């Protein structure tokens, strides 16, 4: 069965600093990978996704992620963090079954200091 690990429970960065959130996955076949963001009291918003092709994926809000098959990783990056980026971030992998259910990591809480 597929699984997703987000090693960092909580990360704190200063506004304007760069950000990298780690994600490792376990999946037998070529994975479909996603990053979602959840603000307090909100549902999940899709930041970006990787299905195939270019391993560097661009998303919304200035985020990007790089798929590295050799490391089973799909890390999320942003060159300059804004205070509004403070939220919880989830990495997810989708199965290849008919329902395409998502398996999520446990999330990384991002705090942005002024």
């Amino acid at each position, binding site marked *: 069965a597929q699984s997703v690990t987000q090693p960092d429970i909580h990360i704190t960065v200063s506004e304007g600093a760069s950000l990298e959130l780690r994600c490792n996955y376990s999946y037998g076949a070529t994975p479909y990978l996603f990053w*979602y963001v959840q603000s307090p009291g909100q*549902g999940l918003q*899709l930041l970006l996704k990787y299905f195939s092709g270019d391993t560097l994926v661009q998303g919304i809000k200035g985020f990007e992620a790089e798929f590295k098959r050799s490391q089973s990783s799909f890390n999320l990056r942003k060159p300059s963090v804004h205070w509004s980026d403070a939220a919880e971030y989830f990495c997810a992998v989708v199965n290849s079954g*008919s*329902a395409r*259910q998502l398996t999520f990591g446990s999330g990384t809480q991002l705090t942005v200091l002024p």
Partner: protein
Amino acid sequence: DAGVTQSPTHLIKTRGQQVTLRCSPKSGHDTVSWYQQALGQGPQFIFQYYEEEERQRGNFPDRFSGHQFPNYSSELNVNALLLGDSALYLCASSRNTGELFFGEGSRLTVL
């Protein structure tokens, strides 16, 4: 264009009671998935409905059941509530196996 809407937004129940949560999918979407998000955890897949049938189910007991109506809206029912059922319940809609769009969730507290 309204997105995915869920009701109620918050509710409190006691152990042993039953609860029904409702979801209206985004316009043009025919598939509804339900996820449970416990505090401090990532969402976990409960089940998915397509064409009024349960297409796939996650690792949840039979106390969790659902329904999809001809207008594609959906309900999640949980019987014999346990303290451990306290969570945020998220509904997501899609056009078959396309991209999921999530609602803001229903926060269930079981006392």
